[in-house]
């Protein structure tokens, strides 16, 4: 009895391998190309390390309580030392612990913004491109309007009215980013809707909804993911920027942009406050940009060279 199950499983796997032979080979080739790009690999390592730090900050940080916001006024503005590798801030908190806890925010926000954009922009773009006509026209004109606001300005206005918080920052980012993805997916859908298998599904009476769900969206997924990777860097920058001018995270949240802002008034006497948080933002954004660039070069055939 056991044996049969195993046999079925292996044959299924072999079957799957056989059916996806070319796909597997392509993936292997792409992986090979990616791994040859040393900068991209370094970027990937930084991203993975940041995720690990963010998830296990409570165990990895030397002073987890200070990382969350507990102050230690006796120990204010100490320069980097053996106890506090990155020094302490204006409330005596260990900067390293704060930077480590700060890794959580870009991680969470980028996941939330990605999810929001996927939920709004991707279906709208798919519907617009698939149906064409007035639906397409309507969706595209709406994206025109939203694209007329530089993302940060709209985010500022929205956050100003709704109140400053990371949640509102995420909402504002979704509202300003979705039109780009709607356009991207729409372009894909327009080219996909004339494909023979889509036309065949139509003639067989498959519902529009099913066609969009089964044929259009899955095919648009790859480019969307690549674009996401490229854009996560920009999202992180915007979150930090909004917090920097006081529209995002509120003290004592260990947010990098906020930390740079708080450190500003001590910049001449205690350089380590802003510097390490700034390096953290720079490093993580750089890592995403390096990986995103490499992915785009591999997966966008037009840019392949």
């Amino acid at each position, binding site marked *: 009895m056991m044996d049969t199950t195993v046999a079925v499983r292996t044959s299924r796997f072999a079957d799957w391998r056989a059916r996806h032979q070319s796909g597997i080979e392509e993936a292997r080739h792409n992986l090979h190309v990616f791994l040859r790009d040393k*900068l991209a690999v370094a970027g990937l390592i930084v991203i993975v390390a940041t995720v690990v730090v963010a998830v296990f900050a409570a165990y990895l940080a030397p002073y987890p309580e200070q990382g969350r916001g507990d102050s230690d006024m006796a120990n204010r503005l100490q320069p980097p030392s053996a106890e506090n590798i990155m020094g302490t801030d204006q409330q005596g908190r260990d900067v390293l612990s704060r930077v480590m806890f700060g890794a959580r925010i870009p991680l969470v926000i980028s996941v939330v913004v990605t999810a929001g954009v996927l939920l709004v922009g991707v279906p709208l773009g798919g519907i617009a491109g698939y149906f064409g006509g007035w639906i397409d026209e309507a969706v595209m004109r709406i994206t025109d309007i939203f694209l007329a*606001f*530089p993302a*940060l300005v709209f985010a500022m206005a929205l956050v100003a009215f709704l109140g400053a918080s990371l949640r509102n920052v995420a909402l504002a980012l979704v509202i300003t980013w979705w039109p780009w993805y709607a356009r991207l997916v729409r372009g894909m859908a327009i080219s996909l809707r004339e494909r023979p298998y889509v036309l065949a599904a139509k003639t067989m009476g498959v519902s529009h909804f099913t066609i969009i769900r089964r044929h259009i969206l899955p095919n648009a997924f790859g480019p969307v993911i690549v674009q996401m990777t490229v854009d996560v860097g920009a999202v992180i920058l915007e979150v930090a920027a909004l917090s920097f001018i006081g529209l995002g995270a509120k003290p004592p949240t260990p947010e990098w942009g906020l930390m740079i802002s708080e450190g500003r008034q001590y910049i001449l006497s205690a350089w380590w406050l*802003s510097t390490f948080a700034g390096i953290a933002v720079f490093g993580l954004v750089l890592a995403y940009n390096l990986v995103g660039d490499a992915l785009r070069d591999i997966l966008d055939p037009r840019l392949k060279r």
Partner: protein
Amino acid sequence: MTFRAYIIRRLALLVFVILGVMAVTFVVSRVIPTDPTALYLGGGRHTPEQKAAAREALGLDKPLVVQFGLYVKDFVRGDWGNSLRTHRPVLGDIMGFLPASLELILSAMALAVVTGISMGAFAAYRKGRLADHTGRVAAIAGVSLPSFFLALVLQIVFFRVLGLLPVAGQLSISVAREYPVTDITGMVVVDSLITGNWVAFWDALRHLILPTLALAAYCAGTTMRMTRSAMLDALESDYARMAYAMGVPDRVIVGRYALKNAMAPVLTVIGLLFAYALVGTFFIEQIFAWPGLGTYATISILNLDYPAIMGVTIIVALAYVTVNLIVDLIIAKLDPRVMLS
């Protein structure tokens, strides 16, 4: 399609988009908030009479469509409301702060476009060589650096460590007192240049350098990346091969044949970057105490000065769609095929 028909179509779209922008700001400022009169009157407690007056001024008792019509009418007439903080008309405030921002944005964009395009074209020409790799890493670092952090670093290095450049305002106080600049365009560097006020010009130029660098880094990096990619497309194209086969020198193929073709995507990106620079000044101006729109905007936001915030939002959106229209018209002039689609 003729060029004129193209312009007319684009202008129609522009009007539509501006109306849409107005609708969105209308919804954000009048429909979403539970009590728009509180926003209109500012913080603190208000008497019922004040509230009633505000309701009437905003036309809140009328249907939404009528309210929106009034909103647009006021906007077109230049009545953008009064700032809760300065108690002056918002439009007048904005016009007063705009030139300083424009000065900074234009100098940063000019620097970014010149360095970005030349570096990008050179990197594409030397594809795979050292210059290409160095350029790519520099560009990617440029787009990864938060501008406000770069601004702080520049301040420390050039002011604190090297003592070379000033880090606050458009002019030194002593220079402003002894060599006052006549206000013509509102841009200090330009005005002092026009009037031949060399002392002020030199001083203003020195003040402009660091904020320009901080603002230009991202734009230069993005322009460089786009130029490189578009130039590679052009240099590997059939017409470039034809030109090689005809013995056209590399200099001409890179500098004329390919560059003119690569300009369309590069200009599009420059239009988008203009938006980035518009918003980027919000941070840079705050750090360098630059008396521009960004400073006005951040102060308004911190004071919950809603009419001012809406005014800034609309002016930025207006500037942005206008720049994009201009960019598209230039592209249409450069590439005759654009008007076909």
